Structures are given as structure tokens and as C-alpha cells.
């Protein structure tokens, strides 16, 4: 029995590690046993897709696209702040303007924000570093 438990203790982390490697894609940390992209997609479908669309293409004149824009791929802090604070400023991407406001979504938990931002930074043709919960937390506490 003792031997069996030891085996489990040995195999379980290994299995989790392999699973993370398989599904983590752009996420490098093997510790990310949970699938951040999958979790991020769930948050995206619920809170973002109705405006930014399932393909991240946005809506011409109304809601900005999320694919290959400096807002998504650039400075992480600015991107995190857009979620925490919302935004109602005139926005121009490739000569097109977008008029709908971005709602403040600070109801989302730090981890949910990290997940969804990691998802959009690695979907719709994007590739950029993951966002972590501590990064979100730091900006949220600065805000208060």
C-alpha cells in the first residue's frame, strides 16, 4: 500500500506536467497545470465575444478588433488597465475609429483577467507573452 501511494505521488505530478505541456501552447511555465487558454476562452465567450466577436474581428465603426493591434500585443499594463478601468476614449486602428465604450470589468477576478488576456494575446493570429494573476493584482491594488 505504501509503495502504491509512493507511485501515485511520483506519477501524478508527472502526468500533470505532461498535460500542461500538451495543452499549454504559448505558455511556457510547466507549473501552469490548468489550461490558461481554455479558461481564458470561457471568460472571453461570456464577457467579450458579443462585442469583439468570436473571431476577435470586432465590429466596424463600433467595437475594435483584437487581432494584431498594439493595444493587445503591446504594453501589458495598459491592456490590464483597460479591463480594470474600462475606456471611453476615441480609438483609432488602421485609420478606422470605434465608438462603443469598453465597460469596466473589474468584477472579474485577477486570475480570470490574466486568463482572458493571455487568451486574446495568443488567439486571432496573435502571439505574445502570457499575463499572470500577480501582474493584474499589482495594478488593481495600485488603483485603490
Amino acid at each position, binding site marked *: 500500500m505504501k509503495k502504491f501511494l509512493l507511485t501515485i505521488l511520483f506519477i501524478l505530478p508527472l502526468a500533470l506536467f505532461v498535460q500542461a505541456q500538451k495543452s499549454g501552447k504559448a505558455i511556457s511555465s510547466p507549473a501552469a497545470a490548468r489550461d490558461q487558454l481554455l479558461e481564458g476562452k470561457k471568460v472571453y465567450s461570456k464577457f467579450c*465575444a458579443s462585442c469583439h*466577436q468570436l*473571431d476577435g474581428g470586432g*465590429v466596424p465603426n*463600433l467595437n475594435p478588433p483584437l487581432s494584431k493591434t498594439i493595444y493587445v500585443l503591446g504594453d501589458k499594463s495598459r491592456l490590464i488597465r483597460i479591463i480594470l478601468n474600462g475606456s471611453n476614449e476615441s480609438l483609432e486602428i488602421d485609420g478606422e475609429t470605434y465608438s*462603443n465604450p469598453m*465597460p469596466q470589468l473589474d468584477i472579474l477576478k485577477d486570475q480570470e483577467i490574466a486568463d482572458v488576456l493571455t487568451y486574446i494575446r495568443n488567439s486571432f493570429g496573435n502571439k505574445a507573452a502570457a499575463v499572470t494573476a500577480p501582474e493584474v493584482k499589482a495594478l488593481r491594488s495600485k488603483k485603490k
Partner: protein
Amino acid sequence: MIIPLLSAGIFCSLYAFKNNPSAGRQHRPPKTDADNAGLKLPSGFGALVAADSIGKARHIVVTKEGNLYVKLAKPVKEKGIIYLQDKNGDGRMDEQSGFGNYGGTGLYLKDGVLYASSNDEVFSYQLNEKNEVLDQHNPAKLISKLKKGRQHDTKSIVLDNSGNIYVNIGAYSNSCQQKDRTPGSPGIKGCPILDSAGGIWQFKANKLNQSYGDGIRYATGIRNVVGLDWNQQNNTLFVMQHGRDQLNGLWPDLYDEKRSALLPAECLYMIKKGDNAGWPYVYYDQYQKKNIQAPEYGGDGKKEGSKEYINPALAFPGHLAPNGLLFYTGNQFPEKYRNGAFIAFHGSWNRTPEKQEGFYVVFAPFKDGMPTGEWEIFADGFAGTDQVMSPRDAKHRPCGLAQGPDGSLYVTDDVKGTVYRILYNGK
């Protein structure tokens, strides 16, 4: 050398004339395109591309000579109004010029005057006997300083027969929440937006330098209007409202995605002075057939709204974005179309994860100035694809409507800047 060239030139001109007997005249209807400009139309109808790639084409008017003025959402080369002429009468516009260095949507022609709007002003241009603009650089400024938020900023215009002009001033908000478009945020009591927006304002069509103090709030509680027209049969204003968005996104406990994709109705309202359509306090539910209290104002999806708010004359599925309304008074189309309404639906974005809908022109028959209650898709295929999941998939999106002197129907598209002309050539 000169003589043969000249003769060749004369021969070519004669040849062109021979092959184009309608040159300069409009007696014979133009030939429609073999593929009907990519549109699906009822039997007996055909279409042609009258103009293409002119910019973000919004509202349109046709002169009695068959020439077109088109308002662009954004000026192209400092020209916000495009003037298109068909010199040889083949239906395809062959001369393009423009003026008015401002973007906008509204355009209307009445009694020798062209009216055009930016997103916070309304101008008028005097026309000569050929309906050409006399002074392109110095229009009269009729109205200015209209409220222009980031959302719903376009100003559509129409005139009645008593010297008044009507201007929609869209609400710069989805549902007057304390925090706009934010999940769970309640509505502001006594929505302050309604003082200067969220309705139709009436001004004098010939008076300069008017603003809020000179006009009257003709009707209120109308979230945003792009398509509107004056019904000559009952001498009344009709408008198409863009209904609210995001019932599911903002109130997921009350509305599932399916219901949210269909609700609320896009409403055709017959507007009388003093009417209140109830935005943001209620929305119209086309299944329950009544005004329902908005969730931002204590609604639960069932509670009926106050009876003080008007009901629509006709209700369409949600989110289709009606951008053009035209009462057809021509003789070219069959009898059933006479005095009925054409409505150009720009197409939805707020139905995710369901596929998007709209991107077509609808016909609703009228009898004695009121809709019969039926409607059908008249012209489809603008999107150029069977299924639009995301609005960007649509290659063309219908926006403005106008009737030609021969009774043809013109439709603009603000994606590629195509102007379609639809004709009836059946028997």
C-alpha cells in the same frame, strides 16, 4: 494624318451613338447586370451596379434627371457628398464629383434644395433648374451644436410638407446605465440623456443658425434612428429605431443567449408630436407583443412597462440595424409595392454566438398609411456569403434607400461604396 484620325473619331462617335440610342435620355430602362449585381431578388426584378467604390456611402437622393447625391460617413479627398451623373443613360454613373468636406449620414432633397447633415449640424444647398448645387462651398447652416456622443452620433433628416425638418439625435448610451454597457449596472433615474438626445427634434427648414432653443423635441424615448421617411399618404413621420443591445451580456440571469439574439424588436414607429417610445425604461418584445420594463429599471423580462409609451406600427427581429426607410410611390414596381415601405437592414453584430442576421432590404406592404403587418425580404445577397458569423464577413452592407424618377430603387452600401439600382423588368 489628321483627316483619317478625325474620320475615325466621327465613326466611333456615330457607332457609339448607334449602339446607345438612349444616350442623354431615360426612355428605355437600362440593362441589368447578368448576375443582378450579386443580389437575390423576387422574380421579374433585376439589378445593376450604378456606382462602385465611392466611399462609405450612407443616405442617397436621386434627382428628377436621374443623377445621384450620396452622403459619405467619412469624406474621401475632402469630399463628403458625392455627385454622380449618368451622361449616356446606360444606368451606370460615368461622371463623379463631390463637395462638402464633412462626414455624415443624412441627405434629403425637396423643392430645389439639398439638405445634408454632419454628425452635429444640418446644411442646405440651393439647386439650379437641373438640380445642380449652385454654391458647393457656402451652404446655409440651418442647425448646429447638436449633441454628438461617441455612440449613435449620426443625424438623419427628413422634411414634411409644412416647411419643417426632422432630425434624429441618437442617445449616446445603450440603456442609460450608470456605467454604460457594464454588466449589472442599474439605469440612471430620470435618464438625463433624454433632454438633448434619444429622440426626434423638429426645426424650420428655411431658418438659419438654429439649435436646441429654436427647435422642439418632437418625440422622445427613441434610442437611435438612422432610417426615417415622411409618409405622404397619411402625412406622418415614420422612423426605424435601433433597439438596445446586450440583454444577455448585461443581465445573464434574466436572458439566455438565444433570447438575447432575438430581443428586443427593431421597431417601425409612426411618430406624432409628443410621442414617447419609452427608451431606456422599456423595450418592445415582439413575442409578448408589448413594451417590457428594461432590466436596468427593475424589469425581469416579463413585467409590462407603463402604458404611456407608444407601440410600434411594425416589429422586426432584434439587432438587424435598420439604416434606411423609404416609402415607395413609384409606378415601375407592381401594384403591391405602391406606398409600402422598403427598409435597408445594415445587419447585426449583437447576436453572438448565433450567426448574424440582416444585410438585406425588406419590403412591408402598407394600406391607407399603415402597415398590413406582413413583411418579406426583398433584396438579399449583399453580404456575398451565406453565413455571416462576424459583421466583418459581410462584403457589402445596405444602408441608404432612394427612389429614381422612373421608379427604380437605389440602395447604398457603406462597406465598399457600391450603389445598386433595382428595376422591375417583368410583365
